[in-house]
């Protein structure tokens, strides 16, 4: 009898530590969200490099366990996840991602047709539009700035800024940013069709000129100096972006460039994805604020796409007949590299099967990366 009660008591203690005893509806909802992310990544191939680590991180972050000093949770000081999470909270993962992006980005499309830079600036209305809407919806200025950056369609920038301005909202902002980036093929085409005429959609742009190696080398150096003088608060991101690009284009640091755009960015992407996912614990994530952030995130993408397309139409008024820009590349001003540029190409081909817009759209696309980092620097300067 004693033996049976011994077994029973221990079994009860054991059960009290399992997920069955500790799971709440919040845990189950978040686990479902994580599974949806993994499904979208594998079955639909929506941003798999990001959604699989984030989705898996959501599962890890929402394991229903009893707090018994096991040091499992991301918010428990000294746990493995907590140590890895410091790269997010201290904001050093995003600049390393930017280093890799710089080392893999070819700015030729932008250098050959530099007026496309202005499209990358116009699309940043999405950031500031969402910032204003967030203020109207009752968020405080720092939180509103962090939410606004979702409109930049740039995950690392969103994580960087929210870790500085609103760490408590970072999980929701990061998940929102990456979710809408994955949904760019769904969000952008209807807006592009709505805002353009059939004759505008078939505008053929001049093929880009050849860019000299000297120009490619000067570009990141000028970019860095310009950042130092105009937006120093954007240096953590833009400095690393231009550094990465310089080691790519210099031609003498191939090993560094290959490491930055290969193993380094892969390692950081894994750590960033899994820790951001794990930070979305139900108690922190399932709030009314998160719902509002998702709503504002959707609006910011709509505003960014709209202003990008409308800006091209406006810009065309001042351009000669031979230099017109196809407004279908206006959407690419939101970063989301290279998905939004691909959308320009896909929608353009629907109306003219021999009008390839991809190389033209890459110009505003990489300008959007710079533009959103500049906007983040501006917001950090004012609100940080």
């Amino acid at each position, binding site marked *: 009898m004693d033996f049976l009660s011994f077994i029973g008591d221990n079994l009860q203690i054991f059960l009290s530590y399992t997920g069955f005893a500790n799971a709440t509806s919040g845990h189950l909802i978040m686990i479902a969200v994580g599974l949806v992310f993994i499904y979208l990544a594998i079955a639909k191939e929506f941003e798999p490099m990001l959604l699989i680590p984030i989705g898996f991180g959501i599962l890890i972050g929402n394991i229903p366990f009893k707090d018994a000093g096991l040091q499992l949770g991301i918010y428990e000081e000294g746990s493995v996840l907590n140590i890895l999470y410091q790269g997010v909270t201290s904001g050093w993962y995003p600049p390393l991602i930017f280093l890799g992006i710089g080392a893999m980005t070819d700015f030729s499309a*932008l*250098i050959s047709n*530099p*007026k496309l*830079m*202005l499209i*990358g*600036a116009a699309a*940043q*209305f999405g*950031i*500031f539009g969402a*910032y*204003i809407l967030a*203020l*109207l*919806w*009752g968020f*405080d*200025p720092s939180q*509103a*700035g962090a939410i606004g950056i979702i409109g930049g369609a740039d995950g690392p920038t969103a994580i960087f800024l929210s870790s500085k301005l609103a760490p408590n909202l970072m999980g929701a902002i990061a998940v929102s940013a990456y979710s809408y980036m994955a949904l760019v093929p769904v969000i952008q085409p209807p807006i592009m069709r709505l805002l353009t005429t059939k004759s505008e959609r078939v505008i053929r742009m001049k093929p880009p*000129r*050849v*860019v*000299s190696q*000297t*120009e490619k080398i*000067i*570009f990141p150096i*000028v*970019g860095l100096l*310009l950042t130092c003088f*105009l*937006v120093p608060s954007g240096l953590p991101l833009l400095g690393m972006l231009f550094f990465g690009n310089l080691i790519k284009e210099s031609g003498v640091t191939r090993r560094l460039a290959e490491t930055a755009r290969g193993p380094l960015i892969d390692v950081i992407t894994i750590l960033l994805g899994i820790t951001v996912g794990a930070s979305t614990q139900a108690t922190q994530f399932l709030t009314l604020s998160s719902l509002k952030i998702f709503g504002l995130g959707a609006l910011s993408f709509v505003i960014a796409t709209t202003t990008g397309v409308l800006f091209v139409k406006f810009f065309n008024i001042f351009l000669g007949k031979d230099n017109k820009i196809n407004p279908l590349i206006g959407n690419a001003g939101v970063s989301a590299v290279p998905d939004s540029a691909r959308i320009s190409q896909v929608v353009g081909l629907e109306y003219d099967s021999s009008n390839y817009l991809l190389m033209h759209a890459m110009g505003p696309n990489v*300008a959007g990366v*710079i*533009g959103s980092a*500049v*906007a983040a620097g*501006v*917001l950090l300067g*004012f*609100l940080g």
Partner: protein
Amino acid sequence: MNILENIQSADFQKGLEITGLGLAGVFIFMAVFLAIIVGVDKLFPYKPEKAA
């Protein structure tokens, strides 16, 4: 009602100011960058390599 109150708040007024300055900042950054790229193109135009 809340939105109307928020419009009149000092935070919102400051927000409009930051938006104006921020967008101007982004456009100025890009415009200066554009001008420099055009200048660099004039200084270092592409020269095709001569075949041996």
